[in-house]
């Protein structure tokens, strides 16, 4: 069946051959003459579809295979099995035509030329992508406005701060008005203000240019603010694919109780685990001086029970209950390998 979504990924796999070495000199010599290999399935049969204009959060713990998937989608790696098709292109088959339609930003390494002034970098990209003068001017003006490049556009790339460099990199990936933008950890190592600016910029670009965005991140705030839908992978397999709200409702039984004690010593009296028989995963208590945060599963103890137990044991100045944040949900998912879904 022909599927005309923007990105179509079917049973995508990537296997790496990894040499097995026994420890010590003896092992090294043995490996030299009789190398043994192990096949590591970094990506093990992933399928999903992305519609045009969607912003997808692609998440998973370190080493889950996120980057490998992104590298296959961007045509850098050739899949071992399966395939992906983006806007009608198989990336590795028509690489040169294909990459004209995508923009790629790797947070960890810049794609800009270290010694060139930023403006010159864009001039080079203009040539590489055959952008005509008029489009270039329009696009530059837009990117300038969204990403605030004006202050440092004449500086050499090597002198830019990390935040500036990231904005410059994103602009460089968008100069040719790509249909799909791949962002691999775009906010890694940035401060809160810069993160916020970058998120706003991504949001605007998605809205105004209709760019489809694939975002990998470890910063769950990125996900919460930008993505309606997330795809989570672990150990090379997809463990969750759906709306963020679905994830939240699935794990919605988690609540967070936070309060301020009048006396820090009172903490000892709050024996939630014994009182309600919480399983390890279902309870987490954090106390910093008099500030206390208790995350718990409402399947084991209701909010009312928790509240009344707390109030019967100690005096508190202030108390509130809220939904557990997405970070907590994902932490639980990572731990459980997604088996709950």
């Amino acid at each position, binding site marked *: 069946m022909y599927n005309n979504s923007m990105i179509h990924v079917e049973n995508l796999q990537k296997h*790496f051959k990894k040499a097995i070495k026994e420890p010590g000199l003896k092992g090294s010599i043995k490996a030299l003459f009789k190398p043994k290999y192990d096949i590591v399935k970094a990506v093990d049969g992933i399928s999903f579809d992305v519609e045009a204009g969607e912003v997808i959060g692609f998440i998973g713990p370190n*080493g889950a295979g996120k*980057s490998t998937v992104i*590298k296959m989608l*961007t*045509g*850098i*790696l*050739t899949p071992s099995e399966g395939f992906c098709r983006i806007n009608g292109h198989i990336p*590795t088959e028509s*690489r*040169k*035509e294909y*990459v*004209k339609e*995508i923009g*790629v930003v*790797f947070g*960890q*390494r810049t*794609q800009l*030329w270290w*010694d*060139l002034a930023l403006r*010159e970098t864009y*001039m*080079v990209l203009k*040539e*590489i*992508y*055959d952008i005509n003068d008029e489009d270039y001017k329009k696009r530059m003006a837009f990117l300038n406005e969204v990403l605030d490049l004006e202050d440092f556009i004449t500086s050499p790339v090597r002198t830019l701060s990390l935040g500036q460099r990231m904005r410059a990199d994103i602009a460089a990936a968008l100069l040719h008005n790509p249909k799909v933008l791949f962002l*691999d*950890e775009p906010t890694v190592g940035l401060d809160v203000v810069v993160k916020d600016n970058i998120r706003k910029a991504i949001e605007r670009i998605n809205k105004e240019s209709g760019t489809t965005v694939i975002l990998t991140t470890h910063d769950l705030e990125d996900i919460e603010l930008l993505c309606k839908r997330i795809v989570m992978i672990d150990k090379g397999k997809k463990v969750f694919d759906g709306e963020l709200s679905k994830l939240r409702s699935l794990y919605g039984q988690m609540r967070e109780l936070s309060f301020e004690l009048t006396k820090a010593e009172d903490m000892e009296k709050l024996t939630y685990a014994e009182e309600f028989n919480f399983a390890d995963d279902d309870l987490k208590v954090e106390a910093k001086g008099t500030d206390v945060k208790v995350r718990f599963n409402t399947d084991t103890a209701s909010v009312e029970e928790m509240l009344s137990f707390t109030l019967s044991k100690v005096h508190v100045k202030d108390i509130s209950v809220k939904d557990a944040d997405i970070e907590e949900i994902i932490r639980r998912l990572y731990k459980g390998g997604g088996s709950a879904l």
Partner: protein
Amino acid sequence: MRKYLRLHRIFIAQDLKKLMEYKVDFLLGAIGFVLVQAVKVLTLGIMFAAIPALTYKEGGVVVDSWTFNEVLFIYGFSLIPKGIDHLLFDNLWGMGYWVVAKGDFDKYLTRPVNSWFYVLTEKFCVDAFGDLFVGVVLVLYSVLSMPAEIAADINWLRLIPVALVMPFAIMIYTSVKTGTAAISFWTKRSGHITHMCYMTNEFASYPTKIYNRFIKTFITYILPFALTAYYPAIYILRGESVWSLGVTVGVSVILFLLSQLIWKLGVKAYESAGS
């Protein structure tokens, strides 16, 4: 193709601008290459101070001999194709040493240009002016100081076919570097292989007749650096080895296609690096 030339021009302009920024770096680099060459020339000079000429004997009879000036000319000439390759296509060295191993090759694959060409043109290595400078000086000096009876054999019209074949000679260097650099797609690092192959060019700046058959065949057909040095130089000097010009074109094209094949297969096998 025009797009590629335009791109190359932009990168060259950028590197020249950079040159203005890092003047000391350039000077040191170029002086370094000049010094290396100076030591080699000095060695030649010391050698020839002890012997009147380099001779080749067959059955105890001198069959061929080369004077200091001729050897100097061959040596100087060899630096020209080598220097031009160095000037334009030096970026290939990085491939085998760190680009592939560190996963930096990713960026060459996310642009709508041929990845090989992109790597090739990204850097303009001004240090190579050191090589070229020494080459030209040696050629001029050896000709000007040449005994009249040797100089009489030179026919400057022979420069025309040599100039026509020159791009193919340069391509021999570039292809050897490309093919060996591409090995890194499988092995992660191959810089030392490139270096090893590249260094066989040292053999090629002397008359090939002085070597045994194995080395002679090796530097004429396998890593054919003799085609970039001794053969064209001796053709200019004496009109010998006209055949080598044709061989240069043929061998160079074969090497080029082979290196492109290795590169293409290599890109498919590229594994990037974890980030």
